[in-house]
């Protein structure tokens, strides 16, 4: 595969020192309706950042502000030492892959890809060779002369990607680019997109509502909730150490346990375990896969575990795992993920390690 960007540009020695893009206290309202509130985040050179959120969380608006299609009500956006938010979109070294690709229907694939280079008035030979490279990169060389209406959704997606990357942007914005593809193609494109990003070394800002997609592809995930940044962290961290109840529930599946800390010990229903938290009410997230059914023959997984009993109410088949709903005597209801293929029923002996119960902030209701 041909590389499309010079290595010097891709990985400048300054990477890490100064962020490529910094979004500083950006807010946006449409009329009286606030869409984004005080968003600050930084994107490093070569980073794959995903902006994740439900519909209406403001994720697309944030992307459009970076691209320049919307202007922020307040706040600033800087690309290294250049203030970006005061420039029109056509002066920003940022390119976008649109949700529905937005290929020009009157131009061929080749002309679509070369569009940015031709409006920049580059010499014809350079346009031709760079378009060829870009088409080779997305494996679409044979379709060079086709019109967009004649190629499939997945192919249009590749052309949209080539059309953006051929301009060697500092930053590539992707607005739910995979949402129109069917599940199989989607998974395939996730892998391709990620390896392409590593290859070209350009920073990607990827917008999606699909948490699984976000986990597979990203270096970091920025979770938006109703216009505010809920948490920004690596996929492993955001999954393993969710900061809020909302994060824990939105990313993956979780059990939320309400407890009360008193003198270094938390009491949650009839269970208790030692914690290093100040006294007061506390909320824990406990992932279903961190709960185990104790197999008496094998014994428990560790010494420092909390054991309790619960009755199976429901068992659902999820392919590689089963999800059990259990209810304890004190009324506590929990979901448990188990890999064993057994039909569970009646009372079970259950356990979890206290370190897997992560204290999370309550997500306050916002209107």
């Amino acid at each position, binding site marked *: 595969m041909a590389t499309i960007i010079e290595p010097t540009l891709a990985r400048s020695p300054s990477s890490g020192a100064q962020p490529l893009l910094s979004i500083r206290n950006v807010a946006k309202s449409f009329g009286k309706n606030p869409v984004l509130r005080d968003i600050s985040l930084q994107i490093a050179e070569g980073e794959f950042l995903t902006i994740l959120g439900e519909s209406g969380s403001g994720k697309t608006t944030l992307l459009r502000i970076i*691209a320049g299609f919307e202007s922020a009500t307040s706040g600033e956006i800087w690309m290294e030492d250049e203030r970006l938010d005061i420039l*029109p979109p056509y002066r920003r070294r*940022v390119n976008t892959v649109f949700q529905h690709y*937005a290929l020009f229907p009157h131009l061929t694939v080749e002309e679509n890809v070369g*569009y940015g280079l031709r*409006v920049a008035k580059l010499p014809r030979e350079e346009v031709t060779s760079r378009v060829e490279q870009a088409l080779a990169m997305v494996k679409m060389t044979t379709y060079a002369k086709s019109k967009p209406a004649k190629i499939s959704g997945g192919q249009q997606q590749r052309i949209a990607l080539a059309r953006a990357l051929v301009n060697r942007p500092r930053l590539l914005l992707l607005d739910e680019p995979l949402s129109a593809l069917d599940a199989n193609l989607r998974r395939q494109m996730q892998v391709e997109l990620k390896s392409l990003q590593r290859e070209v070394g350009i920073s990607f800002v990827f917008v999606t509502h699909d948490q699984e997609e976000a986990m597979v592809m990203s270096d970091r995930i920025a979770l938006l909730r109703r216009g505010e940044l809920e948490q920004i962290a690596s996929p492993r961290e955001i999954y393993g150490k969710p900061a809020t109840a909302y994060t824990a529930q939105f990313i993956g599946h979780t059990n939320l346990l309400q407890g009360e800390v008193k003198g270094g010990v938390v009491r949650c229903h009839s269970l208790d375990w030692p914690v290093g938290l100040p006294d007061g009410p506390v909320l824990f997230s406990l992932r279903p896969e961190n709960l185990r059914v104790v197999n008496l023959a094998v014994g428990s997984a560790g010494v420092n575990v909390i054991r309790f009993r619960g009755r199976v109410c429901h068992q659902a088949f999820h392919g590689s795992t089963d999800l059990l709903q259990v209810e304890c005597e004190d009324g506590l209801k929990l979901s448990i993920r188990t890999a064993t293929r057994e039909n569970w029923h009646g009372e079970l002996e259950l356990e979890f390690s206290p370190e897997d119960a992560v204290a999370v902030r309550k997500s306050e209701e916002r209107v």
Partner: protein
Amino acid sequence: MFSRAYRAAISVPPLVWVAVFLLVPYALLFCYSFWSVSPNQTIVHSWTLDNYRDLFQVNVYLQTLFRSMWIAARVMVFSLLLGYPLAYYLSFHAGARKELFYQLVIIPLWVSYLVRAYAWKTILGSDGVLNTLLQYVQLTQHPLDFLLYSPFAVVLTLTHIYTPFAFLPIYASLEHIPRNLVEASHDLGASPFQTFWRVIFPLSIPGVLAGATFAFVLSLGDFLAPLLLGGPSGIMISNIVVSLFGAAYNWPLGAAISLCMLLLVLALIYLSESLEKKWSFR
């Protein structure tokens, strides 16, 4: 899905309509164009090509036809020059006032054509509004007589009347351009000017062709504007047809000219439609 009887029943009214008001008149027109008039003013029902020979040999007919086409061409160009920027502004930059402006363009269409043509007569006449104003501000000493009863008056009036017809299809085609294409163009570094010429204009060509066809075809066959404002130098082909069917009592020649006009217009519509197809991508 629907019964045969139902389908037959609903297709009868349009078929009758087409037969009575289109097929029969055109067939009559076709027949008349090959008949002739006897010296004692009766129609001779025997086939002849004399009418078509006259049409191509008597200078005044061809001259008038070419003048009509030249007037129609100018009306077409001016209607597009006025209609396109208007449609572009409305579609892309009018914002909340879009609906209002759109209505302002449409409302004149409710006003009788005749009234609008007469209005131009009172504006352009030798003691009309415009000449009075020009003399009042001392720009001219005498009334300008080329304003009324000239091809100029005809072109001006027809442009005024047919600009909405050019505007509407252009506006519709601009409204159909997905706005994310405009954003994509800006995103790829194209200035608004480049975006217009590389994306917006090419995608609006079907509308421009439709608008051009409307303006040209409608003005080509117009006879009221030249009658009221054209004077001897502004006579158009339809005025000749009217007089042949009226005072001159030469229906066969009138029919031959009409049929030629009809063929010309059909050819133009066919050409414009095939071009439109070439320029639409959905």
